[in-house]
């Protein structure tokens, strides 16, 4: 059986899927990158291999995420694609008529608008990470709660507290104030969930028309309180997929499938040693940071130089 591999290497987590010819997921893996993208990918590959039936032949590979170029080089990937396109393609393979994809991760958030199966617009948070997962994490800690308790607790609230959400620093002081004047904990938690939604719609989704069907992804989509807040504000159902965290790698696997440029992939790549080296060029005042990738001591590729002076020899 022919199959296709997609890997999404983010700053925090690394995700991988293998899909069959009908774009159905037949193996998947999700683990922390831990600052070592190549090591994480090797671990993901080991997990995927363990889940696959013996007769499967992976014939095309795609990579996405912030380490897509490095891992694409290491794996000899046929497709190396940015995460926005990858997420859109992956989501459409599950919800073909999706119009809006909301995504809130640990430190970034995006919105992708689609119409008739093509991406028409997107936006990402710029310099500010307010209202993302790390904000929820720090506020949960402040309230003495585990991050996965927040959602259930928010659902208990009848009367969410209003919390200033423009800036994390102000939100935090407002939060303390609201607790001190006697708001209930579940109301405050629900208030935080609403704040995340309002912050997202004001900063990332500003002025964009959020049409149904809407899919919500990223780590924060596991928080049912935020899901409910989105549904209430938008006035329509917000769909959360159990595989929501895999949409990037799924998308790039689908792209690898359509690419058609097939070549049997060898999972034994785990035993090959890959070494990367970063070096400043020093041939002009720009001092470009050049990355060299070695496979068993042979230079595989290099990048990062702005001009020919930095070409690896």
């Amino acid at each position, binding site marked *: 059986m022919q199959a296709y591999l997609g890997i999404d290497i983010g700053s925090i987590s690394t995700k991988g899927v293998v899909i069959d010819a009908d774009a159905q997921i037949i193996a998947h893996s999700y683990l922390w990158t831990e600052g070592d993208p190549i090591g994480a990918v090797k671990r993901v590959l080991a997990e995927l291999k363990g889940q696959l039936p013996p007769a499967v032949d992976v014939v095309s590979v795609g990579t996405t995420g*912030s380490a897509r170029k490095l891992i694409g080089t290491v794996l000899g990937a046929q497709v190396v*694609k*940015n*995460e*926005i*396109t990858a997420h859109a393609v992956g989501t459409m393979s599950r919800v073909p008529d999706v119009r809006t994809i909301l995504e809130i991760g640990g430190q970034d958030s995006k919105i992708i608008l689609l119409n*008739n199966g*093509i*991406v*028409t*617009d*997107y936006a*990402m948070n*710029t*310099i500010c990470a307010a209202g993302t997962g790390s904000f929820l994490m720090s506020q949960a800690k402040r309230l003495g709660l585990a991050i996965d308790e927040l959602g259930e607790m928010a659902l208990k609230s009848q009367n969410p507290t209003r919390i200033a959400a423009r800036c994390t620093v102000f939100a935090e002081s407002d939060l303390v104030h609201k607790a001190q004047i006697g708001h209930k904990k579940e109301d405050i938690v629900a208030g935080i969930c609403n704040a995340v939604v309002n912050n997202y719609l004001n900063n990332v989704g500003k*002025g964009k028309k959020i049409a149904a069907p809407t899919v919500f992804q990223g780590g924060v989509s596991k928080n049912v309180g935020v899901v409910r807040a989105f549904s209430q504000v938008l006035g329509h159902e917000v769909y959360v997929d159990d595989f929501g965290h895999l949409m990037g790698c799924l998308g790039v696997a689908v792209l690898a499938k359509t690419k058609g440029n097939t070549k049997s992939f060898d999972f034994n790549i785990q035993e090959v040693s890959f070494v990367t080296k970063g070096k400043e060029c020093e041939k*002009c*005042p*720009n*001092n470009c940071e050049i990355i060299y990738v070695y496979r068993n001591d042979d230079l595989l590729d290099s990048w990062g130089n*702005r001009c020919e002076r930095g070409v690896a020899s």
Partner: protein
Amino acid sequence: MWRSFFEELGLNVVVSPNTNKAILDAGINASIDESCTSAKVYMGHVEWLIGKCDYIFVPRIAIYENGDATCTKFYGIYDIVRATFPQAKLIHINIDYEDGQTEWNAYKKLGDELGAKPAAVKQAYKNAAAALKNYELELQAAQHALLQSPKLKVLIVAHPYNIYDALIGEPIVRALESLNAAVLYADIPDIAHMCEKSKTISRTMYWRYNKHLTGSIVHYSDKIDGIIFMTTFPCGPDSLAIELIQRKVKDIPMTNLVIDSNFGEAGLHTRIESFIDILEAKKETSK
């Protein structure tokens, strides 16, 4: 224009090199931190020139005809440079139409200070203005020819001092060209004509350079596939103008790239690549 003006008067012109990290770092050190990245780059270039020439030319350009203003950095840069580098010998022009300081008056005064004869100054100014006009016409013709290109056409809406900068803007142009897009620049079409056209988007915008760029969007709106705004952090006029345009212009895909002094090229590539994906998909389906 200034270059040919000086050369017409028989002076040697020393120009600082393309911006590199050393120049940017020097500029950051010579500026207050709230200053915009472009002004920091400018300060870096001034510092590079110190000791390499007799005079450093720092124009003050404030107000043109009809009260068209530049941004406050253009108002203030001469005084900022003078206060930051008291050891530097400066020459300047002061363009401020509300104060009777027309472009010609400004150059006349400068020529005077340089000890040139009035007739020579007049001739140098005339030739310099003509040289500038020719240069602009060449750029306009080249850009017009690019409209026939079968490639995806992307209009870059950015101030020339940002987008043509080797360190700040060029990586964006390179990324677009490597993705096989044709790059058009909003600052190339004729400024007076474009300022007039900008009125269909806003009648009250008063920054001359932003009017120019905005007018180009109107001018090219039916000839391009997408718009990329490129601005340096923190630019006051751009932040207002871009917000306004994004609300008023609806049917062209657009994205906004904000560059600051500690930018990473990775995020830039992700944004540009996905934007080009959108334009390609849109073009495919409209066929």
